C-alpha cells in the first residue's frame, strides 16, 4: 500500500505532460480527470463535499453498523486556534491538510506519523478583518488541485481579509495570491474555494456592507481572473446565457437584475454567496446559491430583488447562467440561500431517470431541481413547522406565503419558523445513492422578529430589528434545548425515512458511508453515528469542544478513519465566543443557545477515529528518540 508521496506525484506529473496539450485544446483538463479519480477513491477526501456531486458519501465500509460501537480515538491535533472550526480536513495521498479559522493557518500532516507537522502556512493578514467579520471568524475549508505539467499540485484557501491563496501542496509555499474582496470596503471571505478543471471558484460575503455578491473564477496556474459574474444588476453583469431560463421562462429572464429593484438599489443589493458548490463534469455546469438581499429591512427594497436567493446553474468555462431559480423573492427573514447543493441521479415519479440537484434551503424548504433544465421536481418543507410559507407552487415556482408570519415595521411577528438562522445553514449534508436518501442536519429554531423605527432629533431615525430566537415547537423552548434535528429525506416521494431530535442545532451537516452509517457533530461537542436505515443512535464520543464542521472519512494503510474538526463558534455560538448576554444579540443566537455554555467551551483541532483506536502509534517505537 505504502508509496512515497513525492514519487507518486512526480509520476503523475510525467503522465500529465504527455496529454496536456491535447487536453487544453479540447477544453478538457487532465487535472480534472485526476481529481475525479481521487474523489472516487476511499484513500482520499480531496474536496469538502467528497466528490463533485457533493454527496458527502464514502463507499468505505470497514466501519459499519455492527462494529461502529468500537470506534475509538486514534490520534488528534490541536490547531492552536480557538473560535469556530467549520469545514473538514482534506486527505490526499497520505497527507492530511488541516485549516483553521482566522488567522487561517494551514497544516500538512503525514498520516504515517501524525505527530510530525510536514509544513505549515501562517499568512499575514490585515487585522481589521477580525473586526469586520459578522459572525465569528470561521473558515469553511481548503480545496485541492492535483497539478499538471505547468504547475505543481496545490492547496487553495481563502483568507478572512478577502484574499485567495494557492499553496504548493508539497511544500506549503505560496504559489499565487489574489485579492477577491477588499477588506477596506468591508469584504471578508469565509467560504471554501471550489476547484473544478483548472479553475478556482470563489464566492463573496458582506451583503450587509453594501457588497453586490459575485462569483469569480481564477486560473489555477496563475491566479488570473477568468470571469466574474454578479447576483444583481444589468444582465451583462449577471452573466446570462442567451438561452437563460429557456425551459422555465416563468422563473424570469431578461433585465430583472435591475427592474426588480427600486432605482439603483441593486448596486448595494447583496446576494453574496459564501456557501458550497457542486459540479457536473458531463454538463460542464456548476451550481451554487446566492444569498440575501440588502439592506435586510425589506421596506427599504421593494420588488423581487433578483437575483438574490437564487439557485444558479452556470457553465463552468464561461460562468454564464443557463438557469436561475429564485426561491425567496423579496426576502423578509434573512433566509440567505447559499446552502449546500447535492447532485444525484434518480428516477422521478414517472420513472424517468433524471440528473437532479437537491438543496436544503435556509427558508425551511428542501428543493430538488432538474440540474440540466432548472425544472422544479419537488419542494417540500424540511420540517412541517415551517410556517412563513404554505407551500411552493411547483407550476409557478412561487412560494405561497402565510401573511401572518411576514415581517413589517412596528410589528412583532411571533413564532416565525424557521428563524433567521434557517432550518438549515452552512452544514454540508450527504446523499446515500443506495438508499436514495438525503441526511439533513437541521436547526429546529424559530423566532420573533420585530422591525422598529426610532425617531430622533432633526428628522433622523434609526431602523433596527429585535430578533429573539428559540427552539421550535418540537423542542423545549422553556429550557432552550431541542433545537436540532437529523432527518433522512427522499427527494422524489417527499417522505422522511426517519427523523430524530437533537439537543442543539446540527450545524455542521452529515456524512454518510456504505457501512450504513450517518455521522455528524453537535454543537455541544459530540460526534455521533446513526443507523442509515432507521436513525438509531449507535455510537457517540465527546469531543474537546463543540463541532460546527462536518465529518469526513479516509482509508490509510488498510484502516478506515473518521475525522472531524472540533471548535465551537460560528453564528450559533457568537454569545459564547464573544461573551454576549443580551438574548437578542447576534440576531437572537445568544438567546437561542444560552444553554450551550453549560455544555462546552472554545477549542480548536481535529480528532481522528478508527476501530479499536487503531493508530500509527500502535507501533510504539514510531517517532521515539530512544526507547
Amino acid at each position, binding site marked *: 500500500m505504502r508509496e512515497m508521496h513525492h514519487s507518486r506525484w512526480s509520476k503523475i506529473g510525467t503522465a500529465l505532460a504527455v496529454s496536456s496539450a491535447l487536453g487544453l485544446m479540447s477544453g478538457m483538463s487532465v487535472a480534472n480527470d485526476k481529481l475525479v479519480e481521487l474523489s472516487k477513491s476511499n484513500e482520499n477526501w480531496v474536496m469538502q463535499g467528497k466528490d463533485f456531486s457533493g454527496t458527502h458519501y464514502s463507499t468505505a465500509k470497514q466501519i459499519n453498523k455492527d462494529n461502529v460501537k468500537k470506534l475509538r480515538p486514534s490520534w488528534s491535533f490541536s490547531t492552536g486556534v480557538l473560535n469556530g472550526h467549520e469545514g473538514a480536513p482534506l486527505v490526499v495521498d497520505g497527507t492530511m491538510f488541516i485549516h483553521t479559522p482566522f488567522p487561517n493557518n494551514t497544516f500538512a500532516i503525514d498520516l504515517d506519523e501524525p505527530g510530525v507537522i510536514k509544513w505549515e502556512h501562517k499568512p499575514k493578514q490585515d487585522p481589521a478583518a477580525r473586526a469586520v467579520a459578522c459572525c465569528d471568524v470561521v473558515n469553511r475549508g481548503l480545496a485541492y488541485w492535483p497539478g499538471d505539467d505547468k504547475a505543481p499540485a496545490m492547496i487553495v484557501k481563502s483568507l478572512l481579509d478577502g484574499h485567495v491563496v494557492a499553496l504548493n501542496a508539497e511544500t506549503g509555499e505560496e504559489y499565487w495570491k489574489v485579492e477577491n474582496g477588499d477588506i477596506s470596503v468591508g469584504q471578508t471571505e469565509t467560504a471554501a474555494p471550489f476547484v473544478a478543471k483548472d479553475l478556482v471558484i470563489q464566492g463573496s460575503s458582506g451583503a*450587509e456592507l453594501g457588497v453586490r455578491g459575485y462569483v469569480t473564477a481564477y486560473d489555477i496556474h496563475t491566479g488570473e481572473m477568468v470571469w466574474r459574474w454578479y447576483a444583481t444588476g444589468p444582465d451583462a453583469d449577471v452573466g446570462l446565457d442567451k438561452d437563460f431560463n429557456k425551459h422555465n421562462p416563468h422563473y424570469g429572464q431578461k433585465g430583472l437584475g435591475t427592474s426588480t429593484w427600486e432605482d439603483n*438599489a441593486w448596486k*448595494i443589493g447583496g446576494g453574496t454567496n459564501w456557501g458550497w458548490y457542486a459540479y457536473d463534469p458531463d454538463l460542464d455546469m456548476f451550481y451554487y446559491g446566492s444569498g440575501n438581499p440588502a439592506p435586510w429591512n425589506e421596506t*427599504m427594497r421593494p420588488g423581487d430583488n433578483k437575483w438574490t436567493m437564487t439557485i444558479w446553474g452556470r457553465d463552468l468555462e464561461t460562468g454564464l447562467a443557463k438557469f436561475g431559480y429564485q426561491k425567496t423573492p423579496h426576502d423578509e427573514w434573512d433566509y440567505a440561500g447559499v446552502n449546500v447543493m447535492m447532485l444525484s441521479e434518480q428516477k422521478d415519479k414517472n420513472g424517468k431517470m433524471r440528473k437532479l440537484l437537491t438543496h436544503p434551503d435556509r427558508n425551511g424548504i428542501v428543493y430538488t431541481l432538474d440540474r440540466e433544465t432548472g425544472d422544479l421536481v419537488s419542494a417540500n418543507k424540511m420540517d412541517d413547522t415551517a410556517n412563513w410559507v404554505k407551500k411552493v407552487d411547483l407550476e409557478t415556482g412561487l412560494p405561497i406565503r402565510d401573511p401572518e408570519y411576514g415581517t413589517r*415595521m412596528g410589528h412583532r411577528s411571533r413564532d416565525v419558523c424557521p428563524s433567521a438562522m434557517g432550518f438549515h445553514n452552512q452544514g454540508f449534508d450527504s446523499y446515500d445513492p443506495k438508499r436514495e436518501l438525503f441526511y439533513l442536519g437541521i436547526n429546529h429554531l424559530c423566532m420573533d422578529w420585530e422591525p422598529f423605527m426610532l425617531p430622533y432629533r*432633526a428628522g433622523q431615525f434609526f431602523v*433596527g430589528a429585535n430578533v429573539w430566537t428559540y427552539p421550535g415547537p418540537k423542542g423545549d423552548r422553556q429550557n432552550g434545548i431541542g433545537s436540532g434535528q437529523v432527518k433522512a429525506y427522499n427527494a422524489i416521494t417527499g417522505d422522511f425515512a426517519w427523523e430524530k431530535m437533537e439537543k442543539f442545532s446540527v450545524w455542521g451537516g452529515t456524512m454518510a458511508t456504505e457501512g450504513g452509517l450517518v455521522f455528524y457533530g453537535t454543537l455541544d461537542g459530540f460526534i455521533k453515528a446513526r443507523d442509515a436505515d432507521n436513525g438509531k443512535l449507535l455510537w457517540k464520543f465527546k469531543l474537546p469542544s463543540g463541532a460546527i464542521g462536518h465529518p469526513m472519512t479516509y482509508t490509510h494503510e488498510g484502516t478506515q478513519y473518521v475525522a472531524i474538526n472540533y471548535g465551537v463558534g460560528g453564528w450559533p455560538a457568537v454569545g459564547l465566543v464573544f461573551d454576549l448576554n443580551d438574548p437578542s444579540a447576534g440576531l437572537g443566537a445568544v438567546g437561542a443557545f444560552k444553554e450551550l455554555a453549560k455544555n462546552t467551551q472554545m477549542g480548536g483541532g481535529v480528532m481522528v477515529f478508527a476501530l479499536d483506536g487503531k493508530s500509527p502509534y500502535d507501533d510504539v517505537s514510531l517517532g521515539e528518540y530512544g526507547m
Partner: protein
Amino acid sequence: MMKRSVKKAKSGRMLPSFLALILGSGLAFNAQANTSTLKVCAASDELPYSNKQQEGFENELAKILADTMDRELEFVWSDRAAIFLVTEKLLKNQCDVVMGVDKGDPRVATSDPYYKSGYAFIYPADKGLDIENWQSPALKDMSKFAIVPGSPSEVMLREIDKYEGNFNYTMSLIGFKSRRNQYVRYAPDLLISEVVSGKADIAHIWAPEAARYVKSASVPLKMVVSEEIAPTHDGEGVRQQFEQAIAVRSDDKELLKEINTALHKADPKIKAVLKDEGIPLL
C-alpha cells in the same frame, strides 16, 4: 425606499403604529410631582449635546432652564445613545424632561421651540468651492460624502444618485459595524475631521451637531445651511430645517406650561449659549 420611510416619519403616517406599541407596553403614568427639582434625562457620552462632565450645550441649556424655573437640576444619565432617551427613560418615568426633540414629536408633548437650525454643507473654505444646495454642480464630481444614515442628508444623497457609490464609505465611518439590530452613532467630530483631513469631500449634517467642531477645526471650514425644503424629483421635497423643543410626557401639562414660561424668559441666555456654540440660528 428610505425616502418613503423618512417621509412617513415626517408626516406621522408611520408613527401611530409605533406609538401604539410603546403605549401598549404597560406604562404607568404616575409621575411624582416633585416641584423642587427638574429631572432631565441626558446621554452620558454624546457630545456636543451632553456628557457626564456636563460639557454639552444641552447640559448648559438645562441649567439655564432649571435656574429660570427656580428648581434644582438633576441629570438622570443614560449610557445608551440619546435616541433611546424618550422610550427608555422619559416614558418610563425615570425623568421628566428630555432636551432637544423635534417640535411635534408624536410620542411626547413638546414645548415651544427654543431654536431652529438646519442641515448644512460643511467643506474647506479655501478650495474655491461654492456649494449652496443639493443642486450645486460641484457635488457631481465628489465621491465621498460624510453623512448620517437615516437623516434627510441620506435621502438627498439618493436623490443625486450618490448614495450607492458612497455606501462603503458611509459604513467605514462606523468601522463596518452591523446596524441591523444595534444603533451605532455617527460621531460628528469624526465626520468633521474627515472633511479636515480631506478623506471626505464634503459633509452634510445637522449644523448644531457640527458647530463646535467646525469652530475648532484646524483648517477654515465653510458651513452653508440648506434650504427649508430641498426639492426632489417627485415634487414632495425633503425638510432640511427643524425646530427643536423640550419633551415631557404627554399628560404632563403643568410642567409643559412652566417650561414654556421659563423658555421665553430665558430666551436671551439660551440664544447666547447657542451662538457661542457656533450654531447657525434661523
